[in-house]
């Protein structure tokens, strides 16, 4: 996740958008991100699915990403070039997956309620501000330090790679177990 400002257009979604709506079950036999991205939000609204463009910012209501743990959901969001998700609240597994993959997922009831469909929005994480041209400005809530550290390292893959290297250097690495 880059620390620089990010600009995108708001695509609004409702409450309780489940991961079946984000990427329907029949597509779970796809393993390439681009293929998954093609079907992003097809279960929610096939017409809306077609018009999502790179850089768009998904703005959802409560409990975004509820249901299945399928990581294919945030993978599809990233593959489609979506810049960020802003929701009033998240289901816990989806939020974990977003953190682990480096998908920017901001939890803000104010921004969720206030951002207008189609508005051009700048997200400046360094300043902690979400600014919509027509919608006004909203604060980005602070990230817990533990989570910030995973994000700062580029997601869970580099974070684990580093831990494995540390264990290996310490001589007792799991890599060396029989």
């Amino acid at each position, binding site marked *: 996740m880059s620390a620089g400002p990010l600009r995108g257009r708001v695509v609004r979604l409702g409450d*309780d958008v*489940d991961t*079946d*709506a984000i990427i*329907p*079950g*029949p597509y*779970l*036999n*796809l*393993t390439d991100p681009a293929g998954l991205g093609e079907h992003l939000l097809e*279960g929610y609204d*096939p017409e809306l699915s077609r018009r999502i463009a790179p850089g768009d910012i998904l703005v959802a209501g*409560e*409990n975004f990403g*509820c*249901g*299945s*743990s*399928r*990581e*294919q959901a*945030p*993978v599809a969001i990233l593959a489609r070039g979506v810049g960020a998700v802003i929701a009033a*609240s998240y*289901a*816990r*597994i989806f939020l*974990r*997956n977003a953190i*682990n*993959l480096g998908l920017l997922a901001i939890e803000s009831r104010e921004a969720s309620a206030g951002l207008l469909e189609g508005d051009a929005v700048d997200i400046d994480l360094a300043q902690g501000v979400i600014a919509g041209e027509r919608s006004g400005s909203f604060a980005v809530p602070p990230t*817990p330090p*533990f*989570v910030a550290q*995973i994000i700062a390292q580029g*997601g*869970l*893959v580099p*974070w*684990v*790679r580093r*831990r*494995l*290297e540390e264990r290996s250097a310490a001589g007792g690495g*799991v*890599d060396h*177990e029989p």
Partner: protein
Amino acid sequence: MTAQILERHGIEDGRPGAFGLARCDLVMVNEISGVLALEALAQMGAQRVFDPSRVAIVCDHFVPAKDVRSADMISRMRRFAREQGIENFWEAGGTREAGIEHTLLPEQGLVRPGDFIPGGDSHTCTYGAFAAFGTGMGSTDMAAALALGEVWIKVPETERVQFAGTPGAFTTGKDLILAYIGRVGVAGATYRALEFDGPAVSALGIDGRLALCNMAVEAGAKTGLVAADATTVAWLAERLDAPPAPLAPAPGAVYEHHTTIDVDGMGPLLAMPSSPGNVVAVGDAPAGTHVDQVYVGNCSNGTMTDLRQLAEMLRGHTVARGTRLIVVPATQRIYRQALAEGLVEVILEAGGMMSPPTCGACYGGQNGILGAGETAIATTNRNFRGRMGHRDSRVFLANAYVAGAAAVAGEIVAPGAVAPPGAPA
């Protein structure tokens, strides 16, 4: 119980909201979460899993393989298991024992009270039926767990959920959890660990507890636990090398939240389309709700108890014209037992069909997909729009008595309308 379990697994700061790394007793993936996890594992530079004996791979979602892509996914998991020396690998048709992950692993003696088990499937919370902290995560988390034997967690707030009173006839573990979700909503327990108790929970057999804990995630919970009591110990004693120790809440245990639900005299419930939180009494379903398909199975309700309840409804009846019945025993062992008890004959004679153990149509995979405008009643755990097929199909969730009664009547009716209340199975 939540704090007890997490402390035993390396979480030093057990206060809700604290972060830490929890040691895993078992790490479970299926072919859908597994394939992405293997890619992340390679990117992490891990050559070996942390402990092959503590990894379980269950191919259950797209089994038997429904197309070339899913066959390739299963092949990949099979190869990985072989390369890594993982003996806990199952796929349909290859071994005597196979089935749906959350029913299979306890059956195989891989789930013990007090265990911490992250799984690459949201319904991993099912293991709470044995007072094991099962919790669903995504593929990259599973890759971390496979590599390190640890995962990061945020310590959840706890909620004591007490069920007061004695439920009425045809009411099961499914109905307890539907009553809870109906009360608090689909995000009512987000990030919490639920601890279920009360006489109605103690009275449940293991199968009923599996159904109860399975759907904790449908309220957003991280897990849902039932104390490991004499029922648990007796059940596990047949499946473990040594009987496990019971696990109960510590005296004076503190919970951040309390919910009490009066289930005295409660009858069976339904979750109406298209949310597990849209719960009503069966009698309050719209009159004459026709069902095109009845689906009995999945990781919440594909047990012997469910098949017995279904058969109780079907005996002496046939499936209504215009309705089809698909029955999915959750494991091969359950399938064999159902054959031995004559339940499969009852189902087939009534006109129903048997599916092999598979996640199948529950998530829209295969073996019973709904067409546009069709309505199903299912013992599964999710009825989101389009979950089981076309976007304009509908799913009602219910227990196996209610599903069986609907198969006979062709519409949603109270089980008592089909079979007089008898001795519960």
